[in-house]
C-alpha cells in the first residue's frame, strides 16, 4: 500500500491542530480581559438562559418531547428498505406503506389532540 496517499490528510490534521492551538494561545495573550456577567452566562441561541440550580435536572417536558421524537423517528427504519425495493413492490408496497403511515398519522393526531405536543 502506498502510504504517500495519506500524506495530505496527515498534513491537514497537523495544520488543523496547529491552528487551533495557535488561536487559543494568541487570543489568551492579545485579547483584553474584561469579564462581565453577561459574558459568563451560557449562550443558548439568544434565548434567556434557563437556570439549572445545583443538583437540578432538566424539566420533564424535555424528556416527554424526546420520547415522542424517538417513538416517531424510529418508524422511519421501515421506510428505508421499502424505498430500496419501491419499484418492484409497486402498488402493493405503496398500499401497505400507506396503511403503515396512516396508522402512525392516527397516533400523531391522537397525541396532538390529547395535548402531548403542548410545550406549556
Amino acid at each position, binding site marked *: 500500500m502506498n502510504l504517500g496517499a495519506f500524506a495530505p490528510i496527515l498534513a491537514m490534521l497537523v495544520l488543523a491542530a496547529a491552528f487551533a492551538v495557535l488561536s487559543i494561545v494568541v487570543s489568551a495573550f492579545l485579547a483584553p480581559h474584561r469579564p462581565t456577567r453577561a459574558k459568563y452566562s451560557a449562550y443558548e441561541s439568544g434565548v434567556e438562559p434557563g437556570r439549572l440550580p445545583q443538583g437540578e435536572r432538566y424539566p*420533564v417536558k424535555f*424528556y*416527554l418531547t424526546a*420520547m*415522542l421524537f*424517538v*417513538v416517531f*423517528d*424510529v*418508524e422511519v*427504519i*421501515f421506510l428505508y*428498505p421499502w424505498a430500496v425495493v419501491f419499484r418492484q413492490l409497486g402498488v402493493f408496497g405503496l398500499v401497505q406503506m400507506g396503511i403503515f403511515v396512516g396508522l402512525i398519522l392516527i397516533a400523531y393526531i391522537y397525541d396532538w389532540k390529547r395535548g402531548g405536543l403542548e410545550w406549556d
Partner: protein
Amino acid sequence: MPLMYPLVFAAFLFSAGVYGVLARRNAVMVLMSIELMLNAVNVNLVAFNAYLRDELVSGQVFALFVIAVAAAEVGIGLAIVLLIFRNRETVNIDEVDLLRW
C-alpha cells in the same frame, strides 16, 4: 470473518446488559442495560443472517423489528419512570418499595 467473533461479542454485550439490569439501582440505567441486551440480539441476528446467506434476509428484517419495538419500549419505560419520578422524586428501584419485591 468467522461466525464466532460476532457471536462472542454479542454474548459479552448481552451479559453486560444482564449485569446492568441486576446491579443498577437507577431505573433509567436499567432501561439502558435492557437496550444493550436487545442490541446484542440484533448483532446475533445480523451475524446469522450473513453466515446463513439467507435469501429472505429474515435476520435483518427481524433486527429492524427489534429496533422499532425497542424504541416503543423505551418510550413507555421512560413514561413510567417519569410518572414515578413526579410522584416520588426518585427513580431508584430499591426506593420504590410500597409493595414487597
